[in-house]
């Protein structure tokens, strides 16, 4: 009995230790990426690879527009219906506009966008870098005198940092449009009234807190994806495993980061 206890403690300890090494290496990678994205270009040591960055912006950003828009429109619509169900009883259905507007910009817009992008592009980052690792392409890069973080991670990181806020803004807008759709066609609220109500309800702060979150989300998606790519071992199977892990991990971390930032905004602003 005691032996079993000891054994399971050992397993737990090892698991915890392994987990902590992953965390510390991921932090290391993030620091490296930040160095090559911000510090190195400012000091004139190695510029940014803009061509590759723009290519990634198209892959990550432009190509996600349809799916992000569709999902956020639906969620806006769903939220409006759920809210109307409650608010109609008090004859306060106009407040659907407040509810949809505020929760979309402060919370759901950034969160949904980040989760969709994590699933679409975080996994792609992990798979691309992982395949390159398996194929010795990363070693080839290093042999040719390129830093893999600078060459592979920075363009994707930068692209995410630039693209995620834009996608989020669009998601906010489309989500509000979803609520508006229900209000106009089902609750008989006029376009102008809904628009004014939303405009009154929203303050700049709502929009900005949402956008601040995207910076953290972008960092998480890029770094988790890249890290999972770099640690791929074995062949195609390893790539598959890492890809899955990258999605699960980044969604988890996105929610945690969301919780923390929301807590900070809630208690200070």
């Amino acid at each position, binding site marked *: 009995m005691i032996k079993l206890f000891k054994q399971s403690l050992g397993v737990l300890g090892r698991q915890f230790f392994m987990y902590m090494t992953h965390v510390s290496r991921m932090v290391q990678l993030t620091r490296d990426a930040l160095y090559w994205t911000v510090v190195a270009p400012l000091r004139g040591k190695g510029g940014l690879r803009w061509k590759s960055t723009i290519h990634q912006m198209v892959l990550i950003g432009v190509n996600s527009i349809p799916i992000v828009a569709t999902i956020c429109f639906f969620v806006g619509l769903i939220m409006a219906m759920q809210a109307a169900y409650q608010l109609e009883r008090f004859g306060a259905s106009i407040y659907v506009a407040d509810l949809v507007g505020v929760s979309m910009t402060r919370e759901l817009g950034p969160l949904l966008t980040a989760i969709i992008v994590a699933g679409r592009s975080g996994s792609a980052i992990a798979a*691309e870098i992982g*395949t*390159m690792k398996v*194929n*010795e*392409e990363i*070693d*080839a890069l*290093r*042999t*040719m*005198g*390129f*830093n893999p973080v600078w060459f592979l991670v920075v363009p994707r990181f930068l692209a995410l940092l630039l693209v995620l806020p834009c996608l989020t803004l669009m998601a906010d807008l489309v989500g509000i449009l979803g609520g508006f759709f229900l209000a106009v066609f089902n609750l008989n609220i006029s376009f102008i009234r809904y628009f004014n109500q939303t405009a009154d309800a929203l303050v700049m702060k709502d929009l900005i807190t949402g956008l601040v979150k995207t910076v953290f989300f972008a960092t998480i998606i890029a770094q988790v994806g890249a890290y999972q790519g770099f640690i791929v071992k074995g062949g195609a199977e390893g790539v598959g495993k890492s890809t899955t892990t990258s999605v699960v991990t980044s969604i988890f971390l996105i929610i945690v980061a969301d919780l923390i930032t929301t807590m900070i905004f809630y208690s200070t602003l």
Partner: protein
Amino acid sequence: MNKKPIIEIKDLVTYYGSRKVLDGINLQIMPGETMTILGRSGCGKSTLLRHIIGLSKPSSGKIFLKGQDITILTENQMLSIRRKIGMLFQGGALFNSMPVGDNVALPLREHTELEDSTIQIMTRMKLDQVGLAGFEDFMPAQLSGGMKKRAALARAIAMDPDMLFCDEPSAGLDPIVAVGIDHLILKLKKAFQMTIVIVTHELASVFLIADRVALLDEGRIIALGTVEELKNSTNKKVQQFFNRIPDPEKIDKDSYLNSLVGENNKL
């Protein structure tokens, strides 16, 4: 003639997990020399090359490139040293997301200030040298195995390196192309005084290009010398290699059975 070795390996030991792969390698390679490394599959040849260019750190031992101990350098210090090194990986390791031309042009684009048109001409020249003229716009996936190897060689020599490492450059090539590669290597050696380290199994190309041969076995260098010296060696394993003698068959049934069962038990 410069008498200092350009590559010097001292007591190199490496483990993969708990398995010793390289076991006290000592080797000196002179500037302009062509060293071939022979050895049976899995004896650690690729691992040795990886260590010489600093892709992996050894468990113990020192490696000097041009007098600089690279085992104590950081990755970033290593990066600038590697710009003067060309490496042909065993699997080619072409960047699959780029066409062949971009693969070759990449180091030129990022490390030099050359005009784009100049880079294009140089890329074509390098591809022409390996017999791949006109394949710039092909993606690596559209090439055959041997063509990939040759494209990777073109990329390895793109920056006119001082040291060139080739991991089985002619494996999987037809004899005509293979001998073409050998001649290219001879030409590089003559024209640029390149120091070349080649892992190969092709005895024909060893005879043609090698200044010296190192024979690796179970992580050690068991023979080192010119082709003539090794041919005349009395060492059984060396003889086996040069005269293509297979391993003796397992005669003792019991020990054979034991080795099978024993192995299974360990796993």
